[in-house]
């Protein structure tokens, strides 16, 4: 299964709507990096509103995607993390401290614009 990546001006938008298995998560990581490369996008929003579980593997993939995109020159913002998911991540001991987040897609886009203007 592949997660669709939409392009909007200089940004890439992704809304994860499925229960992520490991293979799909890894595939998404690859797809996003090549999409950043070919489109020259400077900002990415990954919306997690419909994701109701993030375990240590998915957390690692998401954290890695943020650092890898950063290396390529694109800022990533994660949006819409559910309260239950946030609590579970803290129990797991995963703080995603260096990862920019925002409440929802709209706030995510605002955050990106601010970061890219700085």
């Amino acid at each position, binding site marked *: 299964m592949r997660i669709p990546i939409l392009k909007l001006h200089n940004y890439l938008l992704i809304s994860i709507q499925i*229960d992520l*298995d*490991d*293979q799909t998560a890894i595939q998404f990581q690859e797809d996003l990096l090549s999409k950043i490369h070919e489109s020259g996008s400077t900002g990415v929003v990954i919306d997690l509103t419909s994701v*109701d*579980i*993030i*375990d*240590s*593997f998915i*957390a*690692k993939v998401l954290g890695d995607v943020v650092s890898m995109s950063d290396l390529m020159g694109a800022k990533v913002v994660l949006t819409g993390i*559910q*309260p*239950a*998911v946030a*609590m*579970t991540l803290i*129990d*797991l*001991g*995963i703080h995603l401290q260096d990862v920019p987040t925002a409440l929802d897609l709209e706030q995510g886009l605002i955050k990106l614009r601010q970061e890219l203007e700085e």
Partner: protein
Amino acid sequence: MDFQSCVNIKKEWDIVGARQLGRDIAKKIGFGTVDQARIATAISELARNIYLYAGTGKVCFEAIEDINERGLRIVAMDEGPGIRDVSQVMEDGFSTSGGLGAGLPGVKRLMDDFDVISRQGEGTEVRVVKWLR
């Protein structure tokens, strides 16, 4: 509603299957969304460990319905290589696979009761319980 059901872990997709079934059972028992997420996450960690380190195994669920206690017991068992030093793998950040090493210590925090029985060369059994409050 007293049942015991198991999911065999053989391929990667079974990790998703196990956590989805576990979440459904947790919901039926009456757990709220936060505990459902905790339970599903714990199952995901245990099932992935089986898949990664033992190859195959199973995850079983049992609804606990005593007069004064209700909860969900999850048992993850395999006949893999076993864990040499259980206290070491319970340290945050210890991993033999380049993972975050958050799995087992994380499961312990996500659940209420936690036990690991492991013998080298014989396998591993992790038993956890979440109580309904």
